[in-house]
């Protein structure tokens, strides 16, 4: 199967007067598993559908391989799309559903049979070929929809929230399945989701969208550890954000919060903004004062099994702190005065 990259250049798209995509630029490598992540209404589906050729014609360029597909009819794009609702045709058997695209491509019928069988084998559902779609479970329908799409050997594979109609445990299973399939076929794949765990566990890189604008692109780890703005920091995992400013004193850089508490920043750190982002697991809590510690009071605590999560009022805000739990370890009661020590090696100033 040939691999094609996708390049999106300055794409604008509006429904009537409402602009939904506002200048999107993106480079997706051949064979990459890429995710669009963002809150509801951020334009993920709109962007994906624009790549497939559905919806209003966008301004800008969308290159698949080196062909600009803007304005091209959907049936001429050779882009495979799996719909959130699966869109299996209820009047056709599983086999006919999967064979549809091959028939449209006038593939000889002997070949159609082999290819359909292979595709069904790929998703482990060869035994269901003669069922009707309404006789399948949600997960099975999902896999048939996938088989129906990959059987035509599309240049790229687009998945719009393919797992959202499945229940939680099946979702975990299916996303591994999806990843296995993607690696096996080596297809350039875009996966739309608003579930960050789904994105983190599957994709090579992802783009976080908000309000029709791409906020940041990178691997899940990069985005989590090095968010470029507060939206990304907040959207991925839990972030504690303290307001203040950076003070430079010779070689030393310190972040001084609005409450006057000081956090010294590691050497070589950058960022001049008025916010510091601290992840809950990078803060330790103790009853005794230490250098650079922030005094606070425990408001609430939750036992989560491997961790204890404290909610501490400190630095002018409520700070979430996760302590890993070991047997015999002491649990600080609500109301106790504590001191927080932040590991500023992993902090980000924005």
């Amino acid at each position, binding site marked *: 199967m040939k691999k094609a990259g996708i390049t999106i250049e300055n794409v604008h798209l509006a429904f009537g007067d409402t602009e939904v995509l506002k200048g999107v630029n993106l480079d997706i490598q051949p064979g990459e598993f890429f995710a669009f992540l963002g809150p509801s209404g951020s334009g993920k589906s709109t962007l994906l559908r624009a790549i497939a050729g559905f919806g209003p014609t966008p301004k800008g360029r969308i290159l698949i391989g080196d062909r600009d597909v803007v304005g091209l009819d*959907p049936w001429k794009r050779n882009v495979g799309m799996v*719909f959130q609702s699966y869109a299996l*045709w*209820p009047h056709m058997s599983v086999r006919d559903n999967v064979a549809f*695209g091959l028939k449209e491509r006038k593939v000889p019928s002997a070949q159609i049979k082999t290819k359909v069988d292979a595709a069904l084998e790929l998703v482990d559902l060869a035994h269901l070929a003669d069922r009707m779609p309404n006789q399948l479970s949600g997960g099975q329908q999902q896999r048939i929809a996938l088989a*129906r799409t990959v059987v035509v050997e599309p240049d790229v594979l687009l998945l719009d929230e393919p797992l959202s109609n499945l229940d939680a445990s099946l979702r975990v299973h299916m996303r591994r399945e999806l990843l296995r399939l993607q690696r096996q076929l080596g297809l350039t794949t875009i996966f739309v989701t608003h579930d960050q765990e789904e994105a983190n566990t599957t994709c090579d890189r992802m783009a976080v969208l908000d309000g029709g604008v791409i906020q940041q692109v990178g691997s899940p780890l990069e985005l989590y550890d090095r968010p470029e703005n507060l939206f990304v920091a907040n959207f991925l995992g839990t972030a504690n954000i303290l307001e203040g400013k950076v003070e430079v004193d010779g070689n030393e850089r310190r972040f001084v919060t609005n409450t006057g508490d000081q956090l010294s920043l590691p050497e070589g750190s950058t960022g001049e903004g008025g916010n510091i982002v601290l992840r809950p697991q990078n803060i330790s809590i103790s009853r005794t004062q230490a250098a650079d510690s922030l005094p606070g009071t425990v408001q609430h605590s939750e036992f989560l099994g491997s961790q204890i999560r404290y909610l501490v009022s400190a630095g002018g805000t409520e700070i979430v702190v996760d302590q890993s739990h070991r047997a015999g370890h002491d649990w600080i009661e609500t109301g106790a005065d504590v001191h927080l020590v932040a590991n500023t090696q992993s902090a980000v100033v924005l």
Partner: protein
Amino acid sequence: MSQNTSPPAATRAGLADRLPRWLVPNLTGVHLVAVFIALLLIGLLLVPVAQVMIVAFQDPATGAATLQNFVDFFRTSLFRESFWNSFYVSAMSVVVATVIALPLAYITTRFHFSGSILIQSLGFIPLIMPPFVGAVAMQLIFGRNGTVNLLLRDWFGFDIPFMEGLNGVILVQSIHYFPFILINLSASLRNIDRSMEEAAQNLGSHGLRLFRRIVFPLAMPGYIAGAALVFIKVFDDLGTPLLLNVNNMLAPQAFLRISSIGISDPMGYVISVILVVFSVLSLWASFLFMRGKDYATVQKGGGGMAKRTLKPAEKALAYATVIFILLLVLSPHIGLLLLSFGTIWSFAPLPDGYTFQNYVTMWEGSKTFIMNTVLYAGIAATLDVIIGTAIAYIVLRTQIFGRKGLDYLATAALAVPGVVLGIGYLRTFHAIDVPFTDKPMASWWVIIALALMIRRLPYALRACTAALQQVSHALEEAAESLGATKRRSIQKIVIPLMTGGILAGFVTSFATAAVELSATIMLVSSNNDAPLAYGIYLFMQTPSGRGAGAALGIVAVIVVAIGTIASQIIIERDKKLKSSGDAH
């Protein structure tokens, strides 16, 4: 539900209590009403139809059971021909109606098209005119010497036999009945999720192929429902072939046998059995086909239906198609209007001159017809909504044994063609005298009203059921918990809240009963008892009466139009009222 709570076991002592419950029913007012309605339906629907069936299988001389009548029927070449013609005309009407409805349904549901509302409303216009009324007007426009052919001959030197023999029946019927397909098909098309189409486009399909492989199969259940309805209606119809003077079809043959030879001739009954069997078969076939094929695919995560914007060339084509079809569909109305205002109209594209004389003549000659119509349709519609409300209540709100049966029985009237009901009434009631006289009931005008009542009951029942379904049961229970008896709560709460729906049912029943011909024509015994539809039929028999007939036809169209619009307005207003009631 107090009537259903069984008494505690300890008090079950008497003989009556040890008999099965259904032998000693705990009768209440509702039970009595149910029994009364059941008897009425049995007497006015079941017995007459059964009577027809039985006679068809009886030796006319001895009364012994026999199949001889059917053998005779199929041995007579005229009957074989009539059978084939009826079948052919019905099938072809479905085909032509499809050709008319399909583009309209597709264009209005799948594209942004400014004419959509126009089509969706104009598309229903044929239904407000009984097909036989337009038939004569269609002769004048599409007949051998009608407008279109005169022009064709002048300009191109050929003509098209639109109205010759069976063609005429097919054209008139398909123009009249295509809205059944349009309505059902549009609803189906609207229910197809756009992802169904997008998935196909994504896999390389588009245009006609996409329509043929995905869209149409998904819309099939709605299409079949509409097509089956058209088939039955055409198969059963008497008025149109009669007016077009096409007698070699089943319904006209049944009518002619009974009216010329008499009610003892078995052929009319054999034909009735065939008509009923076909009605039931096509209803059943469409039911079988639909089973398990609810393709309404608008679903979670889908985008509902997508409408596409037409390119300029496509738009021009769409408008041309739509305008052509609408002209065709409106031609009976246009023709009828011209005819009613025309002086003489023959061998000319348009009438020679225009006048109001036809309306004057019509009014002088048809006051009785109009009065009779108001009387009959009024009685029929009133009884329909009373019985409809009662049945709806019994089915939805009580546990009375056999309540579903009542619903089925009333609805079964759908499968009984008017001709068959007419013959059944003639046969059943000719032997029974009108109370206190020695005239047979079969020639009593009341029988016409009752026949109309039975024919319209299924529609009224649907309207009343829908109305009752919108009245929450809790409202009634609230009244009862405040001390109102069952009867008072029905009177004070249920009926007032159902008024809108009941009124809509009344108006529709009235309007459609006013133009019914096929049962009426069998039961009218003297011109003094005849309603409007029969009057039109009489006028149209003579060339000189056609103008006045058309004027009367216009009156009929106006009556039905006002009725349809009024019931729409009532339903809409009622909906608004109910929803504002919910909000507070």
